[in-house]
Structures are given as C-alpha cells and as structure tokens.
C-alpha cells in the first residue's frame, strides 16, 4: 500500500516552473529518495508535500486521503514529519525540551490545567519526557539531553532534529539533506540511524546529495531535473540510466566522469 502519492504536482515562481507535473508513489515502509542536480526542485517538492507551499496544479495524497493545501500543523497531526535543510531547531531550549515539543500532537492537556499545573500536567510532562528521552536514544545523543540546544555541535543538531521529528511518531518522515555538512563517519552513522527508523516501520522520504548514502539505503529513487521527472527506479536502474548520467554530467561526459558515476 502506498502512504504518499504525488499526482501531477506543479508550481511556478514567476516564469520558472520549479516543479512541473511530478508524480510518484511511495509504498509503505521503504526509503524513497528524491535526487537531482541543484535547482531541480527537490526542496520545493518537499515544501509542497509538507504544506508550506500550495501547488498550482496536482494533488498530494497521504494514506489515501487528499491532503493538498492542508496547513503543516494539520499534516503533522496526521502523521507527517520533516527535517529542514537549514536546521530549524529551538536553540534557547534544551535538547530534551526540543524533542518534547515533538510530542506535541500526543499531548492532551488544556490551557487551564497547564496554568494551574494540575496533576494531569505533571503526569503528561513525565510521559512526554520519557518518550523524548527514548527518541534522543534512537539517534544516540541522550547524553546531551540537558544541554542547551544552541550549544550543540552541528552534527548533533542534525540528529536532534531527526529525534524531534521521530518523537512525533510519524507515519512518513521527510528528511531534507540530512548528510549535508557531515563528514564520512557522521554520514555512516546517519545511514545506520535511517536504517533503524525504517526498521520500525516508518516510511522515509529522503532528499540528499550524498550519492553513496542514497545508493546504499534507498529502495526506490526518483530523479528530478529542471523541475521534471527524469527517471525512477532502484539504485541499480537509476545509476545506469543514460538520461540521469546526462543530467548529472552533461551531454558528452568525459571518460573520467563516467567512471566516477560508476
């Protein structure tokens, strides 16, 4: 069964067709990667799916339901989570508090109870903290729980953002360039984290430039160029697709480039 469908999605900024009639289908429980050269429309596509932009044409289905144009918080409450290419953490809160905000959609206390710190709030806080700690553990930074998020190193902030998204117990997790700025060791650890996430049944949609990571963990890869779909298939299929090689390396690639593309 597919959990996420994009059907004929299009959006234009001025005269530029940033996303042009893109369709794909993400089956449940896999890693689905969206790749393409810079400016191919990957992040814009993420922004449409996660409700930040309204597409001019086409629609998005989430778990079979038409969710086109729903606000990000409505999508989040249905089980969609995302991370951001330019980190969006809460720097003035501690690491664990960041992740506790991720539990928001599972928290059920009213404003009056919150203002009076009723026992129900105390119990909620305890449960939220427990779940948040577990999420921090899944990305391996539980030791930093009480540190101010603003003081964490870049690699840990990336993990923190993933933990925060995981804490919301999403059905689908969108990761926007999680390996950007990571060294090879950190990227390898990230690969393990993503495998762990998929292992728990969460569907991961990945936008990423690190081709080794993409080829290693993706069950399916969707290739964009200039806002359009170029190809879709398994890692092996995409790697040997002539159109993909052209898009990445130019029409007449040098011998060196072809061997690099492997």
């Amino acid at each position, binding site marked *: 069964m597919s959990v996420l469908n994009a059907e004929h999605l299009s959006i234009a900024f001025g005269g530029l067709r940033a996303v042009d009639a893109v369709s794909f289908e993400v089956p449940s429980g896999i890693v689905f990667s969206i790749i393409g050269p810079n400016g191919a429309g990957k992040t814009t596509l993420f922004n449409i799916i996660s409700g930040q932009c309204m597409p001019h044409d086409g629609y998005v289905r989430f778990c079979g339901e038409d969710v086109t144009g729903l606000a990000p918080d409505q999508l989040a409450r249905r089980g969609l989570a995302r991370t951001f290419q330019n980190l969006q953490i*809460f720097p*003035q*809160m*501690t690491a664990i508090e960041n992740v506790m*905000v991720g539990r928001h959609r599972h928290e059920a206390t009213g404003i009056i109870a919150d*203002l009076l710190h009723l026992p129900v709030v105390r119990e909620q806080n305890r449960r939220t903290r427990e779940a948040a700690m577990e999420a921090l553990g899944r990305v391996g930074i539980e030791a930093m729980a009480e540190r101010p998020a603003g003081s964490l190193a870049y690699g840990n902030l990336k993990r923190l953002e993933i933990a925060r998204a995981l804490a919301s117990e999403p059905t689908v997790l969108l990761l926007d360039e999680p390996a950007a700025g990571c060294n090879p060791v950190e990227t390898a650890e990230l690969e393990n984290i993503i495998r762990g996430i998929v292992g728990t049944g969460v569907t991961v949609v990945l936008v990423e430039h690190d081709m080794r990571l993409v080829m290693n963990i993706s069950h399916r890869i969707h290739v964009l160029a200039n806002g359009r779909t170029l190809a879709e298939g398994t890692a092996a299929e995409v790697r040997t697709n002539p159109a993909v090689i052209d898009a990445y390396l130019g029409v007449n690639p040098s011998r060196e480039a072809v061997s690099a593309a492997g």
Partner: protein
Amino acid sequence: MSVLPADRFRGLPQQRLFSLVPLAAIILLMPLMFSSAYYYRVAALVFIFAIAALGLNLLMGFAGQVSLGHAGFMGIGAYSVAIGPAHLGISPLPSFVLGVMISTLVAFVVGRPILRLKGHYLAVATLGFGVLLAVAFTNEASWTGGPDGMIVPHLALLGRPLRGPEPWYWISASTFLVGAAVALNLIASPTGRALRGIHDSEIAARMLGVDVAGKKLIIFVVAAVYASVAGSYLALLNSYITPDVSSFLRSIELVAMVVLGGMGSIPGSLVGSAVLVILPQALAFFHDYEHMMLGLIVMSVMIFLRRGILPSVTAAFAQRHK
C-alpha cells in the same frame, strides 16, 4: 551558533524554590523598612506594574510576540472599576471581575486577526489598538469623564473599604506572587513548550503539529488578563483614573520594563518594574533632567546588560562562582 541561556528554563521545582520563596520573604520583610505610607504606595505601584509586565513578558519573552498597545488592557481594567460603580451600579469587586472578562473577550476578538501579523506589522497593529482605546477613553466623556478622568470608589473587602496604599501593597504583592507561580506553571507545560518553540522557529513548531495561531491567541489573552488586573489595582490604589493609563507612553513603559528586567525572566519583570517606577521618584531631585537621566540609564542598561538586568547579573554571578 552561540551558547544561549537555556538554563533559565531548567527544572520547574528549582525555579519555583529559587524565585518564589525569596520573593515571598522580600514581600513580608520589606514593610519593616517602610517609614511612611509613601513607601507602601511606591512599592504597591512597583508590584502593580510588575503584574502587567509579567503578562507582557509571557507574550514577548516566551512566545516572541510584541505588543505596543498592552496598556490598552490596563485601561479596560481601570475603567471597569470606575465605570461599573459610577454608571452601572455594579459594586467594585464584580466590576473588577467584569473588567477581566471584557479584557479576555477583547483580546480574543482583537488578537485573532492581529496575531496573524509578524514583527513590525504586529507592533504597529498592537500600537494602533492601544491608541484606539486611549482615544475612546478620552472622547467618551459622558462615561469616562474625558481627559480629566474620573473618581474610582474604594473597594470593600469583608465590609471594610480599603483606604490608603497599605492594603494595596499586600494585595498587589501577593497577586504578583500568584501570577509568577502561574507563569512558571505555564512555561513548564505542553502549551509553554509549544510557545517557546514558536519563539525560536515558528516553521518547525508548525511542522510538529503546533497550532501556532491558536497558541499565540491563548498567550495574548493571558497577557491581557494580567494587564487588566494591574489596571484595576492601579485605579483602586489611586482612587482616580485618567486616559493616561492606556496611553502609548504607558505601553512603551511596559515593554521597557520587560526588556530591562530581562525577556523571559519572571523575577526580571519585577526588577524592570522596580527600576522604572522607583527611578523617576529618586530622580525627582533633578526635576528638570529627570527624563534625560531616565533615558540615559535605560540606554546604558541596554548597551551593557543586553539580556536585561536580572539575567545579565545572574550570569555574571554564576561565572564568578564556577
């Protein structure tokens, strides 16, 4: 990314103990130094403005939303305890409660469209709201006495009218204590975490399922209630009220108290209020230069203690004792 003071939010029980217990002690012991009713009056004013500043601090320091018209809600509270008894035959105590209810309603109705705005636009819209109320209080002379203001009758508690500043010292100080406890509760609750998330990254908070507009509205209403209570107390303490209570200058003063004391610092609101209420009294000696000196002090604090008086001093202290 620099190290930011997240520690100020740490553990609710600690914060409660560290800020509320000494505060209660100060409130109890301070009158020992009061040699005349004048001291009670100034101290009562400090706590009254601190209540309003505390509410505004929840909005500005925690949710990151500005209001340049917050004195408007003080005006609603103040005129409720004036107009209720004078024109509607409602005694002061129910008038006070009515004021809180009206402020809640107005904040709800006004906040809904205004809080969609951000940054400078929100500042200008709230400013407009404050000015609108000040103009209404000035022009509706048949109800409010116009620019000359109107007399406010004494509030009677247990059949005894509260005269003079002393009872208002105890009432405003204990109300501030309760207000601070409620604010601490909020910060450490699911709503509080969502608000602080909105402050730091609205887009991230929204993507985690936070109903951003709804949360902003809630905190705006809470801040309005604090201001309304403070406004009623001010009118009852002075037994007199003029439209000045909701003037633009008053709104700016409230913002200055929050920023001076320390955004996001709950005891800081009290410090900010103390500075801006007591300084003009102390500087009265330099009568001609009073406003200049006040401006100079405020500027110096902002330049040298940018995070506000309390957080800066606490941080310096913590550094020394490491």
